[in-house]
């Protein structure tokens, strides 16, 4: 057995232990990228091997919290993939407007930018007060930040560009207040959003959703866990509801594919069929 294979064994044992002790299950995450992040954590830690770290990790919740921070990838941005948000505005929102009230689930919302972008679109399209968003993540530290709604000022230029490319017609600067190097998102964007913990590997569905977005989350999952999530989303979605995936994710080849038709080809917006 070479050093790499030995480390793979150690990682498997560690993930198994973490699942039993803390209930967080990373065993079905795609290996190459979780291994890369675990290795970074190990290199920064005081331990030489995962076996050494395991004993402390299983006993020290704070140490585990630091590992959790290292494992999850929270990278996100306002109006990530402007073409996607343009399709939301132009193709999906017209359907939503036909309902008196809609419910939207952002699964794996990270620091909330995706939900805040959606709130901007819905408000601009005249749906203020007619929606509730449930924005969930496994990582409570990012949910805390999402709740605060404070973004780095340095990103505003690129976010403004994204916003404009996504079909935004107002001034993006109206949505935040600048405070030194921070941009504080306006309260009207937060009004319709509830941030809450939810773990896609173990928790149950959220009922009666009109839209579920799960973008750049399942990309880290092995096929079996992806199927579990897609079943969960399917159970959460009303007929005629919409499922939105990341630009490099597809329903093709998945069990639930037949229950959906593609609304915006290439942009991964699917509509659940009736019956």
């Amino acid at each position: 057995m070479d050093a790499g294979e030995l480390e793979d064994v150690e990682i498997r044992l560690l993930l198994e232990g973490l699942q039993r002790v803390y209930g967080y299950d990373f065993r079905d995450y795609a290996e190459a990228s979780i291994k890369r992040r675990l290795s970074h954590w190990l290199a920064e830690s005081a331990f030489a091997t995962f076996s050494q770290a395991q004993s402390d990790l299983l006993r020290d919740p704070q140490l585990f919290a630091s590992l959790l921070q290292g494992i999850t990838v929270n990278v996100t941005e306002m109006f990530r993939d402007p073409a996607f948000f343009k399709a939301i505005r132009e193709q999906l929102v017209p359907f939503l407007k036909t309902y008196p009230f809609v419910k939207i689930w952002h699964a794996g919302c990270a620091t909330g930018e995706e939900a805040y972008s959606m709130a901007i679109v819905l408000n601009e399209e005249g749906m203020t007060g007619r929606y509730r968003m449930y924005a969930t993540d496994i990582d409570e530290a990012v949910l805390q930040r999402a709740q605060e709604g404070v973004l780095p000022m340095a990103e505003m230029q690129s976010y403004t560009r994204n916003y404009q490319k996504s079909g935004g017609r107002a001034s993006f600067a109206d949505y935040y207040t600048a405070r030194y190097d921070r941009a504080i998102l306006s309260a009207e964007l937060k009004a319709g959003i509830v941030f809450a913990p939810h773990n896609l590997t173990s928790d149950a569905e959220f009922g009666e959703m009109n839209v579920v977005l799960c973008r750049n989350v399942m990309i880290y999952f092995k096929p079996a866990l992806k199927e579990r999530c897609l079943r969960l989303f399917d159970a959460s979605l009303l007929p005629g509801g919409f499922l939105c995936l990341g630009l490099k994710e597809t329903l093709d080849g998945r069990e639930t594919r037949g229950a959906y038709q593609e609304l915006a080809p290439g942009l991964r917006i699917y509509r659940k069929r009736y019956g």
Partner: protein
Amino acid sequence: MAKRFRAVAIGVSFGGVQALKLLLGRLPADFPLPLLIVQHLSPEAGDGLAELLDELCAIRVKEADEQERIAPGTAYLAPPNYHLLVERDGSLSLAADARVSYARPSVDVLFESAAAAFGSTLIGVILTGANGDGSSGLRTVKQMGGLAIVQDPEDAPAQQMPLAALAATRADHVVPLEAMTALLCRLVAGEAAAAGRRPGDG
């Protein structure tokens, strides 16, 4: 004897489109190894490059899909704005992690995962580029027993990437782009592996 090499990983940045046209364009349709490629692009770039190269080349060229199984004689380009990784079971993964030394996709990320997956059966190739991405990845390729090829900096439109790679590790071959396709073909045919290697190398 088992085949020495099972995959080629290529990292390229500034000047990359020209370099890839030349390198991939000359590979024969029956080139037996998969090629995994990170070319730095602007995040907005579409998959136009893969299509362009596919038309131009005898081998198949495509943008990598998530969890795609690697097929021989096919070149996979990392999609703009995603890291490309290789799993040990021979499938590809994409990741939306933060940029690594300002780059996403990152050559280092590809090379490190490919080195873990293919070990001594990997050929790592660093071509022209104006940054240092790929140097630590190429070192990992060597540490895992793989073979390192670097474009001769004199021959590269941007020298920094080849120079950084050469500073980080001892390359097995330093060649101009013109000679690279022929070298790859010889290596996979099993001839040049011994002849071209430098003594005292790992």
